[in-house]
């Protein structure tokens, strides 16, 4: 009974997924749903992500997962702009390019971590554990 009560009280993790391609969104949704306890919000490009974060306030999300290459505004610029708002939510860059230069660019923009696509259960669990969201 104590375990069930604790589980019920545990707040859901609020995740913002910033990704323009539907196939990657479908996979991420399924992975996050499989883990349970996640409320997922989605943005189709960096500009929309910045707007959602600005409107939601500093504590709107527990985690932001962002693709790099997107129309309108890419993940690097979105990360810079989110940080410029004073938001310290963990941001993890995603890309199928994982050269050192790509990782560095995300970190320099203000991301906390990077994971190469495709997202998997193991990669997601590592991210959630790293930011104490598991």
């Amino acid at each position, binding site marked *: 009974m104590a375990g069930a009560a604790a589980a019920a009280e545990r707040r859901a993790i609020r995740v913002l997924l910033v990704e323009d391609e539907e196939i990657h969104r479908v996979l991420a949704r399924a992975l996050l*749903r499989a883990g349970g306890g996640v409320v997922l919000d989605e943005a189709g490009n960096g500009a929309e992500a910045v707007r959602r974060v600005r409107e939601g306030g500093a504590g709107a999300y527990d985690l932001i997962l962002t693709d790099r290459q997107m129309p309108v505004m890419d993940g690097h610029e979105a990360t810079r702009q989110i940080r410029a708002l004073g938001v310290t939510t963990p941001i993890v860059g995603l890309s199928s390019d994982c050269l050192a230069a790509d990782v560095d660019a995300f970190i320099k923009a203000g991301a906390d971590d990077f994971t190469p696509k495709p997202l998997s259960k193991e990669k997601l669990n590592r991210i959630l554990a790293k930011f104490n969201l598991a």
Partner: protein
Amino acid sequence: MAAANQLTALLNNMYATGLLDEQFQQLQMLQDSSSPDFVSEVVTLFCQDGERIIGELAKLLEKPSVDFDRVDAFVHQLKGSSASVGAQKVKNTCIQFREFCQSRSKDGCLKTLDSVRTEFYDLRGKFQTMLQLERQLQGFYPK
């Protein structure tokens, strides 16, 4: 049981020939009663994206002056969706394709486009067979 055996043989062949990698197993593990068509959904998206992207690449590479940055952007997209579905051969060919984009080699890009096209349509055909066999097993089509 014939359909089940055929499906197992097909998937084993796809792994053995390098068409699929372990990412496809990740998709299968995510399919459950709350999301019974998950694999079909992802595979269908991949096939639609792949056809569209290959068409765009062919158009871009027909031009007398090739915009290699645009070609690279499309190949990057195809590489990403291939990786997500476990389409190993297509993904690896996309990696080579990007090298030709970066070295601005039209001949290299055209040859690799042919390879990607062949591999993609081979995989798409096998995915279509896989989905038909799965539907048979689910009883959607009478035996």
